[in-house]
């Protein structure tokens, strides 16, 4: 399966933004930030919900790191946004992904949504809609591995692994071993306005 991010590219114009080691370090740093910002240890731990495809393994990794650093079990799951997307008309139908909530549920908890790339913000908007259907969190935060800019909605991330200034024509591909056999973040020139 091709990386979820955005369309076909020639291998020619491809730059590695983060190596496997960078990805690991970045996730670790984000884990520390979450611990600090959500006061883990003194309050109910937050619930991490990854947005499939790559947000889900990312959330699991983040939860693992947090537990490692804080010794607190972090409830973790995934939330599928396919049915909440606003671009259904423009894309071929996609298979539904899994929504898996931890047993704790989300009611009254801090929920951290986890995704690989923050771009237009539309995915996050869809995730907020999807989240509303499954419960009423105390607060919702957002963690992304890469923020590439070009927001189309008033949405910002609470935790950002790396800010990457990009042009609209470029593509950011996050590769994760769970899905893609290796860890990396790539920047690709999609040439003439790729498939988005």
């Amino acid at each position, binding site marked *: 399966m091709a990386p979820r991010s955005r369309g076909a590219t020639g291998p020619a114009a491809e730059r590695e933004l983060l190596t496997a080691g960078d990805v690991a370090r970045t996730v670790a740093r984000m884990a520390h930030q979450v611990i600090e910002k959500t006061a883990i240890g003194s309050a109910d731990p937050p619930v991490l919900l990854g947005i499939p495809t790559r947000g889900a393994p990312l959330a699991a990794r983040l939860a693992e790191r947090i537990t490692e650093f804080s010794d607190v079990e972090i409830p973790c799951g995934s939330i*599928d946004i396919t*049915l909440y997307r606003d671009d259904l*008309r423009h894309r*071929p*139908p996609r298979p539904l992904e899994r929504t898996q909530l931890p047993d704790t549920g989300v009611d009254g908890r801090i929920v951290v949504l986890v995704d690989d790339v923050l771009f237009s913000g539309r995915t996050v908007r869809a995730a907020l*809609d999807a989240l509303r259907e499954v419960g009423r969190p105390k607060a919702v935060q957002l963690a992304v591995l890469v923020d590439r800019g070009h927001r189309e909605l008033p949405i910002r991330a609470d935790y950002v692994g790396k800010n990457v200034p990009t042009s609209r024509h470029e593509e950011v591909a996050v590769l994760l071993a769970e899905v893609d056999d290796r860890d990396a973040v790539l920047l690709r020139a999609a040439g003439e306005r790729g498939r988005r």
Partner: protein
Amino acid sequence: MKHLLATEGLDAATATQVLDTADGLKRTLLGREVRKLPTLRGRTVITVFYENSTRTRVSFELAGKWMSADVVNVSAGGSSVGKGESLRDTALTLSAAGADCVIIRHPASGAAHRLADWLEGTSTSVINAGDGMHEHPTQALLDAATLRERLGSLDGRRVAIVGDVLHSRVARSNVHLLTALGVEVVIVAPPTLLPAGIDAWPVTVSHELDAELPSVDAVMMLRVQAERMHGGFFPSAREYSISYGLSEGRAALLPDHAVVLHPGPMLRGMEIASSVADAPSAAITEQVRNGVHVRMAVLYHLLAGEEARE
């Protein structure tokens, strides 16, 4: 996929995708207080039923509404034959009025195909909700969903379809879909209720229900319509019931894991004994429940990517 007109020609991959989506939808909606997804917000779905069918119409209506589509029901009383507006004009009118999807039930075989032909060049999708004696694809999909759920898998399973195959669109759709999904289908019916040319179907034919039951994973009982009972297709309801009804004694011949299906509405006593219809092996209410999810999945697959399709 722009239209769903038949299960004939539907490949296993596409069918499985629809069934998977239906599963996902079922999971998503499970236990929710508000069964509403925003997926088809702003889309208009029109049901046009030239035959009465509360069951199917309601199922489609719920499917559309649970996905936030605007659902409009047009009930076309009686047949369009020779009176009133032609089917073609109705189709063009609904499309022009902004229907993203027209769901049609019609007594003429091929009516949905014709509708799709007339709507060529528009963005309106057509779903066949039963055309004459031809096909009823969403019924077959919901049957497959139910069987898959009960049996775990379909490939290599053996399913008996029993009764009036000649006049049954449900049978035709199931034969195509189930065989595409790797199911071995055996048709059990009196010779008068089998179509000429059934030899070309990828099924085995039997006239003896008792001989087939011990080796099937599921048995699908078809409706016997009242008008057939007086059409001389078999001597009497009693004799039909004796030979082809699923009595309690006969149901006992089924393996323990076997599933009993009926597309409804049931003629209890004649086609199927009440105790069999209400036994745990019967999946008849699940069929109805799955019907909504399967139809949601179909709407999703047809209406997604509409503008990317060209």
